[in-house]
């Protein structure tokens, strides 16, 4: 039995009063994935994210987030998610501590657990030393961090980020990538929308392409760093043994598929290229070629475009 997806979008149609923005969009996102939602400007990404956040009701279709129907229980969905819009605002006159306190309390946290949640959220985005500063005094990058801290302070199960790196300098983008990786590592399901593929490269494990209000390509596909799925390597063996799958399994390596004379292996997460090669040779396998597979998001995007 497979677990229910964390996000299940079924046949979503969205109409603005004078134009259709989404045309029957369907896809699922499993728990713990980091989904890159890519597509050109005006493709419908923001509209889709707003529907997923239960901020707008689809004209047709159904969206289930964390087991809750966005139409039937919008407030439940609001409590279960964090959503950062592309153009976000902050209460500039409030201190960082008060902004986070309000965010936590307004998202249902009790007065007792709020101070600790505020400290934790500030620590996650490295704003602990700025808790007493006014939000309006923060730089663009720090404001972004505060906005993200506000969206995660209540420990949501799903995080929706709309163009989160827009306007950030390279250093701030790196910090954002690290944060998203950390949150994903903690089990949060994250959907990040962007039209800049490079900024999604570091942390995305899945990709969904939206074009003209519809899913383009083959729906949700593996993409990006793949860090959460381990290390993929294309290996050619000289005189491969009959019991190759068993011998690989014995050293903790999975044979994913045959690709001509090569096989694609999947080593556990965190595996090092050199260490894997040493283990293969140590297991008595004659390695003729060894090439780590790094399918970039752009590769995946172009492959989907070509479908």
């Amino acid at each position: 039995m497979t677990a229910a997806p964390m996000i299940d979008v079924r046949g979503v149609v969205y109409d603005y009063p004078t134009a259709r923005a989404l045309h029957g969009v369907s896809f699922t996102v499993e728990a713990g994935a980091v989904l890159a939602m890519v597509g050109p400007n005006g493709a419908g990404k923001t509209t889709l994210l707003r529907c997923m956040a239960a901020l707008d009701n689809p004209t047709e279709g159904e969206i289930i987030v964390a087991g809750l129907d966005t139409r039937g229980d919008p407030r439940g969905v609001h409590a279960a998610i964090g959503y950062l819009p592309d153009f976000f605002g902050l209460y500039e006159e409030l201190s960082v501590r008060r902004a986070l306190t309000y965010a936590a309390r307004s998202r249902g946290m009790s007065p007792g657990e709020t101070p600790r949640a505020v400290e934790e959220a500030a620590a996650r985005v490295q704003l602990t030393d700025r808790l007493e500063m006014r939000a309006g005094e923060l730089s663009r990058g720090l404001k972004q961090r505060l906005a993200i801290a506000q969206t995660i302070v209540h420990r949501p199960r799903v995080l929706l980020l709309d163009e989160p790196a827009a306007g950030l300098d390279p250093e701030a983008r790196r910090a954002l990538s690290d944060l998203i990786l950390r949150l994903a590592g903690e089990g949060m399901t994250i959907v990040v929308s962007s039209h800049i593929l490079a900024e999604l490269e570091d942390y995305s494990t899945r990709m969904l392409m939206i074009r003209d209000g519809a899913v383009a390509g083959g729906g949700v596909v593996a993409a990006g760093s793949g860090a959460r799925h381990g290390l993929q390597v294309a290996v050619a063996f000289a005189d491969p043994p009959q019991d190759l799958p068993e011998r690989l399994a014995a050293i903790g390596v999975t044979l994913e598929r045959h690709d001509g004379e090569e096989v694609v292996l999947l080593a556990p997460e965190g595996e090092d290229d050199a260490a894997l090669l040493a283990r293969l040779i140590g297991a008595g396998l004659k390695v003729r070629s060894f090439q780590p597979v790094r399918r970039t998001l752009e590769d995946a995007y172009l492959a989907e475009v070509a479908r």
Partner: protein
Amino acid sequence: MNPEFQRNLWLEASPRRIAWAGVVLLLIYGAAITLTRSNPYGALPALGGVGAVVFVVCAMIWGARASGNSILTEIADRTWDFQRLSALKPWAMTWGKLFGGASLAWLCGLTGLLMMVIAGLSGRVTGLATTAVFMLALAVLLQAISLGAALIGVRKARAEGRTARASGVLGGLIIGAILLSWVAGSAGFQRGMGTEGFGALFTANGLVDWGGRLWSAAAFRAVALTLFAAWAVIGAWRLMRLELQMQNAPVIWPAFLIFLAIFAGGFVLRTQGFAASLAVGSLVVALSAYAAAFAEPADRVRIRQFAHFAAKGDLARAAPLTPAPLAPLLIATLLVLGAFAAPTGSLMTPELGQAGALIAFLLRDLGVIALCRMGERPQRGDFSAVVALGLLYGVGGSIGWAVGQETGGALFAPLANAPLISLASGLAQAAVVWVLAAKRIGINAPPSAPASVPAT
């Protein structure tokens, strides 16, 4: 504490702002004391008067502005979606904004009310409690109307693809004040029309004739304002529910319309009878239909969904999508039919045509508003609808009158002297306008049809 209320207190009633407000108030009250030191009755009467002005300025004007801004500022600062995503209940959000957004205005205003009460008590002024209740209720009423107008503005702006503006709130407040003035002036206090009636709210003396008996005007005014303030707060709460993506069953709105009809009709019950009460009630409810037609977001997708579910008999899904003008249209129709049937106990009266003409023209006007607002540029719809109605009644009526006196005029307005002509003309115009409006909305298109179908 309600987090929304607390956040508003942090922003609006910070110690620094309170300190500055205190300094300003001390200067105002100090100036009043200084200027009246030679008054043989002392400074208290003047302080009471100044206090009343401070309450009006702070709690009513500044407070109303602050309540509306508690929404509009969120829109301008792009924090409204963040609030909509909160887990706060709509009621907590409503009162948190209503009283939190205007917290400093309330603090300042209440010092004025306190001065007024102290001065009144020392001068043994009668009816002081009633006056205080009236003033408090009026402040709450204005603030809740402002909050509700802002919420309506936000919904309309979203549907029309534009940014919500403060001018929408201001316009709503002015229209609300004029309507209040009209009702109070024409029916409540028999002081004439327009702003005279509005002024009568402040200076009500003597007795008010309502519900078949006479009431103390001051007490009636206080109770009526308190009830309207309660309805305004309920209205703001219902609108907040919609903003927080919750659905409203069409219950509270019809209940308010019935209250409104009873309230307005009560003023003529003793002198003109039950039928006249129904007629006055129907008039006020019909006015509400116009207000509702303009307040509703210009969203033809929503109307199409309503029509689709209603046609399928899926009332559970159709009910929350019910267009707001529908309830007042139905209630006004029942009331006006009742008004003409009441004297004889039968609908088959000579006045039936007149009743029908009134309803036909109401139906036509709602169709004109729908036709203008459901076009491809809904942001211009309100203005177009006002112009179209002005042309139909003003220019059309004038031409009709010039051509055929009352008979010609009856073609463009429901006139009592030619009711059957008015009825036939009203029905024909309503049919034409609604066919065009239905075509523009795409009423027969399934919800799966693209929003742009039909384009025009």
